[in-house]
């Protein structure tokens, strides 16, 4: 089941946050309310779009979902729930991304406006040879925590063969734990 199908079937944001564990502060929110939630009010749309494009590039879709807009917004929400300085260091980090866009030959363009290939080239430049950016807010607080947050999220668990974060997803299932599960893409070339 893809994550988009789950949403169509009515997986509520409450369910999503409960399974996510750390995001309990947002229990009262629902999916439809997400678009109006704090991140969009605090950050200008261009910055959100750049972060979403960054997430999509850091964790691209293959046989399992990649990081999407909702994952990025949830990450932002969780970060801000436990760290009120998030907007400060996030804004401090983003110029690194903006500077990297020049590598794509599109000076002045937003990262989100680049093609997938161009975005990938920008991140190869910034992440594989980070230079001064290594250990910075950009490197650790944005890139690494975006990645780790995704893989620890319910959707992230699908990468390793689980329907989502265990605990609630296995409710009612007291037999399958005795055998192996199926790793998505095992034996395939993503």
């Amino acid at each position: 089941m893809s994550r988009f199908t789950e949403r169509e079937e009515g997986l509520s944001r409450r369910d999503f946050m409960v399974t996510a564990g750390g995001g309990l502060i947002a229990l009262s929110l629902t999916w439809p309310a997400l678009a109006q939630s704090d991140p969009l009010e605090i950050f200008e749309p261009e910055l959100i779009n750049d972060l979403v494009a960054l997430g999509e590039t850091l964790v691209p879709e293959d046989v399992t979902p990649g990081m999407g807009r909702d994952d990025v917004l949830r990450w932002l929400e969780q970060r801000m729930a436990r760290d009120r300085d998030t907007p400060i260091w996030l804004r401090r980090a983003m110029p690194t991304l903006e500077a990297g866009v020049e590598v794509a030959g599109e000076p002045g363009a937003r990262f989100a406006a680049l093609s997938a290939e161009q975005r990938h080239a920008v991140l190869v430049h910034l992440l594989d040879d980070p230079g001064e950016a290594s250990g910075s807010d950009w490197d650790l607080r944005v890139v690494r925590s975006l990645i780790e947050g995704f893989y620890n999220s319910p959707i992230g668990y699908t990468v390793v063969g689980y329907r989502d974060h265990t605990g609630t997803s296995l409710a009612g299932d007291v037999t399958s734990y005795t055998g192996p599960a199926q790793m998505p893409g095992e034996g395939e070339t993503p």
Partner: protein
Amino acid sequence: MSDVCVIGSGFSGSTVAHRLALGGSRVTILETGIDHRQPIPERCQVRYSNVGPIRYMFRDVSFRCIGGTSEHWYGNTPRPHPNDLQTRSAHGVSEDWPLTYEELEPHLEEAERVLGVAGADDEPHHAPRRVPFPLPAWPLSHSDRLIRDGLAGSGIPVLSTPQARTTLPYRGRPRCLNLGRCNTCPINARTGATSTSLRWALETGRVELVSEATVVRLESDEQGRITEAIWVDPQGQSHRQRADLFILAAHVPDSVRLLLHSTSPRWPTGIGNGEDMVGRCFMDHGRHNANAVIEERTWPNRLYFQTAAIHHWADAPDRADRGAYLIEILNYIGVAGPGSFTRGTDLWGLPLKRHIRESWGHNIQFHCGVEMLPDPVNRITLDPDEVDAHGIPIARFDVRFDDYALAGYASAAASMDQIFEILDARDVVHRPMRAGQLVSIYHPAGGLRMGRDPATSVTDPWGQIHGVPNLFVAGTGLFPTIGTVNPTLTMIALALRTSERIESLASQGDL
């Protein structure tokens, strides 16, 4: 006025209350805690201090509530090994309990029926048994099976762990749904007192439960008989509960505190403390974890309780020289999630996805607790400087490891390494206790030990405090030695045995 006053509503207290109520007694249970589903107030948190050479730590796994610890535990219920009760006779070390496994066995059987224990009847290495488990066993997990198969031929068997957790509906409790909140099960599939003995006690109509009732003192007469329990409510209002018989069934430090605090001309150093034994020979199982990576996928975190353990060193021939131990196999592997595999790598994009797929889910983890000797120097006393919300001195632990326990921890580490080597595991990480600490896995025991000799014990072999005909102890405080297995089943068996003794004495007019 009641026939019986029980202090503490956990498994021990409610078991005795239920049994005596079935016999016609009117019982009042005084419980200091509240419903654990409510926010736990500060006065229900456990406060204590340390004065010994090591720091004993158990605050994080304990709070006071209706049902006591039975409302927040993991449900492992193996029987004791017969030699756990006979280490002096069998190994020439420590001492024997004042009863044998054979004498305890009928009560272990009844305790299993109370809890609804799910276990495997056909495993020859477990403690001997005469009757089947009440419920079929939890099957071994995938990782249990990998370890079992990997150890095949080594002479180290992997055994199913009996669980007080339903595999089928049982006595009004539903089948486990694997909700993943296993130590505070929301549907009572994991047994607690409020879904078993306490509920049944209240259903008799002869038991009254008073919560938020903190007993601060026991009063005794000139003959040493207990006459009343003084308790206070959250507003500090004092109350008196009179009864013919008193059962002390709080958890170990609180039961010790109450006895030591209840001084009188008859008992100048505390009730039952004429030989200065109250609080002595305190024990616990300390914690040593180790994890490693194996070639096969273990598919962890699909079950949040244990289904198997290794008992190979729980009663080994060298038990005379070092503490015995059980190695529990964890199904929750101790990694936060796939995200933890993003650390320590600069990968991103699809290479990172492939890396996580390849590396995540190969972990195995063991959890180990080691037997310590019942040493009189390890004791609980009253803190001379700090009191609780009701003005009662908090418990002060004076605990140390002896060479026997330290040798046990060294042996446990070596045994886990031996297993890892047989399994061809890599990336072995040991998580022993830090030097100077005893991190409890919440198996506090001793301090109110039973025995035949009043000079070396607090109660007689049935839990009756020496010299106090109408005061009995129920709980792990009675344990003369701690053994290797999780103590709850044995504790309930002892409570059932104590109930039987009380009924027998009462019928003869000897109480």
